[in-house]
């Protein structure tokens, strides 16, 4: 900052040719300065809260009067200087930076348009810009006065509101500088940085609202908590909308809440219709084959369990034809033999499930149960032997690994 100020004063005194010669230097330095200013402004924005509002508004009025009086070139530079100096005295890091970047951007732009009549052109340009500035400052000074009154009231109330008022006072100044910067390409960057920094340092998140609707600021003291809650709610809604956007396919391209809601509604409806269709499909299944449900159950459970896909493929391929082989025999069983055949498997099943085992063991139990119930045309001896073997295999193998136990049972069944 302090490097740039004497340089500008020098420039005010320089002749046209010298300025032409230094135009390239200007541009380079300007770029460097802008970069450094952007960094500085981000750094110095946060501690720059200790400014006095009255000083700042007085300086703005001074500069406004200067612009109205139509000062010569030097005066115009002085305006800029006083502004920047005011910012300096106010300790307003960001505003100061903006002021200088604006003044630094002036000479090369004008010089590029017309090399010869530099002062005249500059006068015109500066007059235009001063018109803009006048309008902006008329608005911002009104804002600033409002804010000053508000801040006085708040300071009387307590220190807690000070942060808020200072954050509010920060915004008009930055807008003035950025509005003056309209010719400059870096004005966009400045705005972005100011927005970012104001977002960063504002715990009071409704700073932007009283910036736009400033008439409601006093009444807004009562509604501040409401607006805060409203903002939180809106953030929540947008976050959930984002989540839904990830969830609903084809919703990424749609922007706007209404279209997204339409898409979500359509998706939910389609899913519900799909469930209806699938239940219709399942209702159309012949209920005689429902003992295969055990098999499906097993499959679902196994597919739900991670890492057992290799055994799943084997067991499914092996068990399905076997079960279907048992299908015709299954219907020709007498009542007595079947009850006797089922009971042991039932008992073993209850015993095994009552034991505190992990999930794969229950898979195997159901698997065993499926085998036992479908192969109930075999003898009691065979089924008891089966269960005994199963118990042995479980005791020996399962503590180490359950999946190998599953495969063993499978092999055992194939041997049968």
């Amino acid at each position: 900052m302090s490097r740039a100020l004497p340089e500008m004063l020098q420039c005010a005194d320089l002749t046209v040719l010298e300025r032409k010669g230094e135009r390239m230097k200007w541009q380079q330095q300007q770029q460097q300065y802008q970069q450094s200013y952007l960094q500085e402004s981000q750094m110095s924005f946060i501690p720059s809260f200790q400014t006095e509002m009255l000083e700042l508004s007085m300086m703005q009025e001074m500069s406004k009067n200067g612009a109205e009086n139509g000062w010569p070139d030097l005066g115009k530079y002085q305006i800029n200087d006083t502004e920047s100096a005011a910012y300096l005295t106010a300790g307003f890091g960001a505003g100061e930076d903006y002021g200088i970047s604006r003044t630094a951007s002036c000479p090369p732009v004008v010089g590029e348009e017309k090399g010869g009549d530099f002062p005249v052109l500059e006068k015109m340009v500066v007059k235009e810009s001063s018109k803009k500035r006048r309008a902006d400052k008329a608005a911002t000074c009104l804002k600033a006065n409002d804010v000053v009154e508000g801040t006085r009231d708040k300071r009387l109330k307590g220190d807690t509101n000070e942060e808020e008022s200072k954050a509010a006072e920060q915004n008009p100044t930055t807008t003035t500088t950025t509005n003056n910067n309209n010719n400059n390409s870096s004005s966009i960057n400045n705005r972005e940085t100011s927005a970012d920094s104001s977002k960063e340092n504002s715990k009071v998140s409704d700073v932007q609202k009283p910036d736009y609707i400033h008439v409601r600021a006093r009444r807004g003291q009562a509604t501040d908590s409401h607006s805060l809650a409203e903002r939180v709610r809106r953030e929540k809604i947008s976050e959930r909308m984002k989540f839904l956007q990830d969830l609903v396919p084809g919703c990424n391209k749609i922007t706007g809440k209404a279209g997204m809601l339409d898409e979500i509604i359509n998706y939910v409806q389609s899913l519900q219709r799909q469930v209806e269709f699938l239940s219709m499909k399942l209702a159309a299944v012949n209920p005689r084959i429902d003992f295969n449900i055990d098999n499906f159950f097993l499959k679902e459970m196994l597919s739900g369990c991670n890492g057992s896909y290799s055994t799943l493929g084997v067991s499914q391929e092996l068990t399905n034809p076997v079960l279907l082989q048992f299908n015709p025999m299954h219907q020709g069983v007498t009542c007595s033999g079947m009850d006797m055949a089922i009971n042991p498997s039932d008992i073993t099943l209850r015993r095994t499930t009552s034991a505190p085992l992990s999930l794969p063991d229950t898979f195997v139990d159901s698997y065993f149960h499926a085998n036992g119930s479908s192969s109930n045309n075999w003898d009691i001896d065979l089924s008891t032997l089966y269960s005994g073997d199963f118990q042995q295999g479980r005791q020996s193998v399962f503590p180490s690994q359950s999946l190998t136990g599953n495969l063993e049972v499978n092999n055992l069944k194939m041997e049968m």
Partner: protein
Amino acid sequence: MPNIRTIKTTQKAKTTTFSSYSSSFSMQPMHLSAETPTSLKTMFALRFLRAYSKINRYKSPSRLSSSSSSSSSSSSIVIRRCKRIKLAAYASMARAVGPKRAWSRALLHKVLHRTRLHRSVTRPKVSGAGSGVAGGAINRTDKLRRLVPGGKRMDFCNLLGETANYIQCLTAQVHVMQGIADSLPPQAWF
């Protein structure tokens, strides 16, 4: 006739065992991470298959006699079974999710009290709850409210969260039911 009796008894035995090991299984989900969709899928699959086998057992006698006599399925039975299966699917999903979600609570309440499911879309109801969403989004919000069970009493923020969870669960449900329907052998169809 003996065929029917045997099948009935087998199914009875089977459902008892089903209930036994499902009850033992329902003590277990604390060991699993109940949040992951895989466990949700397994829970739903278990409950739904149990209910499905019950439905099949319930319908099997008349079904078997009719199919053995005429071997033609009357559509009314299929429609009734379809409704039961759908109810069972929704109830088992709501049970699998548990009572921590508002939509599952509302869905379970609806299923238990035999309220009509998802038919309230056609009901012309004027809801005075302006949810703060401007313009034409109110209609859409009300539509969404009627689609998500229990959504009428939610504010818009909660509605979106519940909708997200509901969509997740519905996709899991559709996936599981599709798997069941696909894994049925071709001779299972009429």
